[in-house]
């Protein structure tokens, strides 16, 4: 099939695909006709008419758009790294139709006006943006932000991500107050004192490289604190980018006690170990750091057991000058939206069914932030992906739509790809 962008104003017929919508509990072979961006008809053997663009979906899965509950789009303030527009373009090319943006911009998203600014700016973009508001004013960790009004304006969660909330009493207030609004509190869990300016995982590799290590206990002790508070006061805690085996032990302990906790992992913590840093590759420098092979194994097992609920990218674009520095001064983070499915599916495809891998990108994150996408039903605005779970492809720098290209997966062979995404009347064709 030639590479072209289809006109979603016309008629697109998805032929011979398997429709999988976990929200509707549908998993069956069927044709699907999209007309003017809406789902016109779902049934077996829809007759081809001559003005139809026909997409052969044999062997492919038609499913809901992906939802990323953790991304950094950098606007306002750091538009040289990413904008709402370039971030959205990257997102939809990776199969994401909804993205939650973290509030660590400049200014910090800590008022209803700023939440509204993000939502209004995204109206004409190809994805839906669900902002996450700050927990504290200016993410300074001193006083609660206008959480209630931000939720009213459309924020779906609160977080001071990038910075941990160090004040335990404020963490208690945030969890207690959030109960009124039914939204999760997301704390970037790292004890800064234990991080001790560590720039990578403390282990055999940091020992050899002479770099200051950030130990796994910097994360697990903070998660223990947060969960102990949540156990005491209630509220719902969401743990972002879990990185260590010890943290998973802590989470399991509190989950079994009945604490309302959800957990995300990034594709890079799922796929890589600290060996990725062996030649001081700043593109693999992230916070929390990529850890040992034992941690990676625990993470993969926890995704399989369901202890980890979903994949989130922590898409963190940085310009070349932010990354082409000495290791200590290089910024933390990597882009993730365009490679997330290929990386994750490559790791998990022999451990999980393709449906349960897809759930990590669709229904599971939606449950955490309490949203529902446009379902795969007749008369609904089409919001869907066509996935080929077996195709091998290379993540090429030339294909990157993000404004930044900081990723250690560039040049890697990935398995599984979103071949087409239709959302908000846009159609991205990666066939």
């Amino acid at each position, binding site marked *: 099939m030639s590479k072209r962008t289809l006109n979603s104003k016309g008629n697109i017929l998805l032929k011979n695909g398997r429709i999988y919508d976990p929200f509707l509990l549908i998993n069956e072979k069927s044709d699907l006709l999209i007309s003017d961006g809406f789902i016109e008809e779902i049934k077996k053997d829809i007759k081809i008419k001559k003005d139809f663009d026909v997409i052969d979906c044999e062997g492919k899965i038609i499913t809901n758009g992906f939802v990323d509950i953790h991304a950094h789009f950098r606007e306002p303030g750091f538009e040289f790294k990413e904008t709402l527009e370039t971030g959205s373009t990257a997102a939809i090319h990776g199969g994401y139709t909804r993205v939650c943006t973290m509030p660590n911009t400049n200014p910090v998203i800590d008022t209803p006006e700023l939440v509204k600014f993000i939502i209004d700016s995204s109206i004409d973009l190809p994805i839906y943006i669900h902002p996450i508001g700050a927990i504290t004013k200016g993410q300074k960790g001193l006083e609660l932000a206008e959480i209630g009004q931000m939720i009213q304006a459309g924020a779906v969660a609160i977080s001071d991500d990038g910075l941990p909330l160090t004040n335990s009493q404020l963490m208690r207030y945030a969890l207690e107050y959030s109960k009124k609004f039914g939204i999760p509190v997301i704390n970037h869990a790292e004890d800064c004192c234990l991080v001790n300016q560590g720039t990578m995982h*403390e*282990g*055999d590799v940091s*020992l*050899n*490289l*002479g*770099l*200051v*290590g950030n*130990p796994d206990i910097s994360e697990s002790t903070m998660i223990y604190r947060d969960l102990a508070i949540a156990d005491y006061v209630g509220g719902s805690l969401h743990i972002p980018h879990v990185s260590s085996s010890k943290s998973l032990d802590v989470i399991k302990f509190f989950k079994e006690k009945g604490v309302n906790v959800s957990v995300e992992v990034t594709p890079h913590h799922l796929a890589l170990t600290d060996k990725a840093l062996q*030649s*001081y590759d700043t593109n693999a420098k992230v916070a929390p750091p990529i850890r040992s092979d034992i941690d990676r194994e625990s993470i993969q097992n926890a995704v399989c057991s369901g202890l980890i609920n979903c994949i989130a990218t922590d898409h963190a674009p940085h310009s070349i*000058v932010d990354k*082409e*520095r*000495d*290791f*200590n*001064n290089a910024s933390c983070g990597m882009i993730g939206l365009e490679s997330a499915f290929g990386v994750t599916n490559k790791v998990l495809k022999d451990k999980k069914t393709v449906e349960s891998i897809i759930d990590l990108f669709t229904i599971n994150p939606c449950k955490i932030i309490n949203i529902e996408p446009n379902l795969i039903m007749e008369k609904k605005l089409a919001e869907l992906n066509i996935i080929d779970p077996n195709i091998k492809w290379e993540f090429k720098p030339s294909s990157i739509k993000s404004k930044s290209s900081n990723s250690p997966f560039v040049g890697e062979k990935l398995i599984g790809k979103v071949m087409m995404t239709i959302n908000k009347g846009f159609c991205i064709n990666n066939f």
Partner: protein
Amino acid sequence: MKKIESKHLLGLEKISKKDIETIIDVGFTFREVLERPIKKVPVLNGKNIVNLFFENSTRTKISFELAEKRLSADVTNFSASSSSVQKGETLKDTIQNIHVMKMDCVVMRHPVPGSCLQLTNYVDVPIVNAGDGTHEHPTQALLDMMSIKERFGKIEGLNIGIVGDILHSRVALSNIYGLIKMGANVKVCAPPHLLQRGIEKLGVSVCYDVDDLIDWADAINVLRIQRERMGIGLIPSTREYRTFFGITNERLARHKKELVIMHPGPINRGVEIDSEVADSDQAIILDQVLNGVAVRMSVLYLLLGSKDFE
């Protein structure tokens, strides 16, 4: 002429034992040159070497500069304050600024681990690591090994102790990699919180009692205690450090054994080592300084030279 396989000298972790032997052997030849009335050989005539120092290090810089001049190279010094590094000038920017000078070799000191390796991405001339933070400082370890060989006639089988703030030291890792590669037994001794977690994995043994170390060792390398470590509470006081880890006169007198004492300098007399010890016959600290010039001549010659010398 003798050759080494390495194109750069970034560290001793990855270099072969054979290369280390060659560097030390040639180092002894240059040591003889340094004893001559005319201490200069024309082997790097016309070669331009840049000393790129991102942090102050008077001793290392003087030693490299002297080595370069003794080899008849042209020397350019470029000092960038570490504040300019923090301000965000990238390594690449700095390097491009001096690239136009058509250098043949870069000697670099940088506060951040890995910087010399990163530099190899931007320039295609030999790079000599003159210390990249707490990672490696290979020429220091080479001169230490040369001094050990000078004293004992060998390195293999010797018991070498390293005492001090191993965690923050710029010379400890290179010493460990080099000595173990050359067949020495290495034991490190430090306050437990000033040791890297898992350091035994490098093949060293660990002790917390400096008297045990002295009993065991043929030679000990006494690391400098950096005074800035005391401000952040890592070392309660100099007198407490001296009580438990200082190489004092009384302590050595108690042991009544022959022990060779090394120190990479500069010395904090009365803190990690007593003056009398540092100035005694068992200390080879001044030989280390001279061997430093010789071994750096050797490294530069082996990386850049094309002709024999006599």
